[in-house]
């Protein structure tokens, strides 16, 4: 019972801080652009307003369009339960690493299906881009996670984390690669292609409004936190005192998001083919790293 309560408390804590982390990112981005920026709670204000507004459905809508935001949200919450965050404890079972990849990948697909069924041209283009990016980035992510699994000879997230020590070359390279993939998967510039505002009017999100838009936005923040959490887990040693754990986790999270946003602010958007080319070059590197990890055994 206690175990479940802790996991639940963990998730609730993350649900609360996810928009705040986004708020902090917005604030920092604004400062880097010489402006004052919104208050840190701004993202929460936006979400609350969206939840209180009605969602308009298009005439050609299908079930997928209506429910996909909620499925994505559920996916993300579940995935967050799988990784240790504020505490050491998380849902842990044999093969949870595969479930994690599945949850992340399926939410991208649901997003694409949902927006295609809205019937809007821009949404369709956005979905197209989302799928081509997602297939590649999820392949990369699977490869990295496979490398981790090989390094630790385990299929349980609990025994994989943290990946260092030992400070082997393959471990460090794979962590860096995962950080890059996480960056791409957060759709940060120069990779925010499916939602490119000036090109295709927010792409996949164009037809969503009110609550469903709020839920979708919320899931994006959760996804970002999920990816950050994985990175933190890869580095953060878990044998420190229990009381220090939440603080160090949060500090790491903040440091990561600040680094990411500083990088993002000074980039323009790539074209989809350029982004794909960049990601394709990562595949052989990952394969090599995986092979090295295998040799370590």
């Amino acid at each position, binding site marked *: 019972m206690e175990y479940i309560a802790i996991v639940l408390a963990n998730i609730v804590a993350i649900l609360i801080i996810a928009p705040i982390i986004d708020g902090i990112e917005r604030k920092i981005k604004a400062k*880097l652009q010489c402006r004052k920026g919104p208050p840190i709670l701004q993202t929460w204000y936006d979400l609350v307003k969206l939840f209180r507004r009605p969602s308009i459905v298009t005439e050609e809508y299908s079930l997928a369009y209506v429910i996909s935001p909620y499925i994505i949200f559920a996916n993300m919450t579940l995935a967050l339960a799988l990784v240790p965050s504020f505490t050491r404890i998380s849902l842990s079972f044999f093969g949870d690493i595969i479930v994690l990849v599945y949850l992340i990948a399926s939410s991208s697909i649901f997003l694409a299906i949902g927006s295609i069924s809205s019937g809007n041209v821009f949404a369709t283009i956005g979905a197209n881009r989302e799928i081509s990016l997602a297939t590649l980035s999820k392949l990369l992510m699977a490869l990295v996670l496979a490398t981790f699994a090989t390094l630790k000879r385990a299929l349980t997230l609990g025994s994989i984390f943290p990946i260092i020590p030992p400070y082997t070359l393959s471990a460090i390279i794979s962590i860096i690669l995962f950080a890059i993939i996480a960056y791409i998967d957060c759709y940060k510039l120069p990779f925010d292609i499916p939602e490119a505002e000036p*090109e295709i009017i927010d792409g996949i999100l164009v037809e969503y409004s009110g609550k469903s838009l709020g839920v979708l936005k919320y899931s994006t923040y959760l996804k970002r936190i999920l990816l950050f959490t994985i990175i933190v887990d890869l580095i953060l040693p878990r044998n420190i005192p229990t009381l220090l754990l939440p603080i160090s986790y949060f500090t790491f999270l903040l440091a990561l998001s600040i680094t990411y946003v500083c990088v993002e602010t000074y*980039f323009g958007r790539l074209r989809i083919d350029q982004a794909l080319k960049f990601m394709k070059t990562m595949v052989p590197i990952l394969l090599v790293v995986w092979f090295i990890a295998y040799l370590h055994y």
Partner: protein
Amino acid sequence: MLTSITEILNLLKKYGKVEKIHKDTYVVEISPGKVRELCEILHWKLNGHFSVTVGSDERPVNGYFGVYHVFLLDKQKLSVIVHVKVNPVTLKIPSITPIIPGANWHEREAHDFFGIFFEEHPNLERLILPYDWPEGIHPLRKDVNVRELRYKLLKKETGLVVEKKAEEEYIVPIGPYHPALHEPEYFELYVEGEKIVDARYKGFHVHRGIEKVAEERLTINQVPFIAERICGICGYTHNVAYCQAVENAARIDVPLRAKYIRSILLEIERVHSHLLWFGVLFHLLGFDTGFMMTWLVREKIMDLAEILTGNRKNYGMNLVGGVRRDINEEKIKLSLETLDYVEYKLRKILDKMLKLKEITSRTKEIGLLSREEARKLSVVGPVARASGISTDVRRYHPYAAYSELEFKVPVYDAGDVYSRALVRYDEIFESISMLKQLLKNIPKGDLTAENVKVPEYRKGLGLTEAPRGENVHLVITGRENKVYRWRPRAPSYNNVPSTLVMLKGEKLADAPAIIASIDPCFSCTDHVVVIDVRTNVKQVLRLKEIARGK
């Protein structure tokens, strides 16, 4: 090749009666049969360029419709207006579009507004008038009372008619409301995957009927204010062009100080317009920091304009014959300080931004426009200069105080989006250096000419170099202190058709940047209106369908 002015005049005399209307500007009145021959010589052989076609209803004056083709010969610093009288019964004259494709829109516009038929025009369809405009009514004819018409139109079930879209191909509509443009324009892009195979343009959403308002309601000294509102970015250049046209027509000498003040404001406008363009380009390429930083610098220029004129955008400084406000020593000092700051800041950031890899990789060799295509479509301004054509009204047809300044005209040959950016980059610094010269050397004197009297039925041509290219106003003065005919031609009018050439074969993601690269100013273009034929297919939609808002 003919070069000297006298030789050209002799040549023109062979075709018809030549009349000098003001300095360096000649009107040749020729018969319809010879139009094409002369236009070909002027545009292709003499290396001039076609600038504008103006239709005019002159039945109350001489019983004919008139068509004026304006050509600018840059090398000889000459403007030639080819005047053709059109029979008011048959209304037919030969089209020059087969020779100069750039004349396409101009002739269609004259067809819309006056019902003049251009024989052998490839595509003489409605261009400008709104979708629900009744057939056979040509608003700029002098016998049409559009005010009555307006109330009739308002009573119709307007807003319910929505054009049906063709569904055979995969169409991406860019517009009418697209966040990249901030202006209602409609580009239909036909795509295969992410590649654009064809493009179509339906524009003129911002047609506001300026010419009719000016000719019917306003007096000569009120028109400058409506001219300024042709465009909110480069309005002052329209204002100056109009005033120059009237001043030329009435042979009014503007005091030198007024000319200097005009030049100062024109250059301030150019700097702010180009900075705005850079901001928009960076925003389109997803580089929001670039947008924020350039607009941060631009804000200083806007504040300066506010201090000098009393408004940030619509300066309202001109009247026919001079300017309304003076610039005192204190303001000159302030302007010089601001310019130093702006120059320092821009040198620090702007070229760094242009070196960023995402920016270069998404602008170099994108949206190509070759020199030949540019000549054919008769594009102007930075678009022409980026395609290797050296054209600049300030240099070749000097106005205001430009003949007394030292400046360079940047020309690049690549013809892509990047070279358009470079042209503008160079121009910003040229403008700042010009502003410094102007502010330091401003002479003392009056602000307005004395005895501003405007005679009837005189023609005048006003040329300015707007931030987007050459800007032409043809004015025929009328009775009772009104204009008889006023045709402002904004640079985007010549530049927009070139985007369709640039877009073909490019990636969808690059479309907004390509469209923006000509710095389209649709509200300038749309003072006159045009629509595609396909709007004839009309469909009445129910409220629900409309509310879908697709």
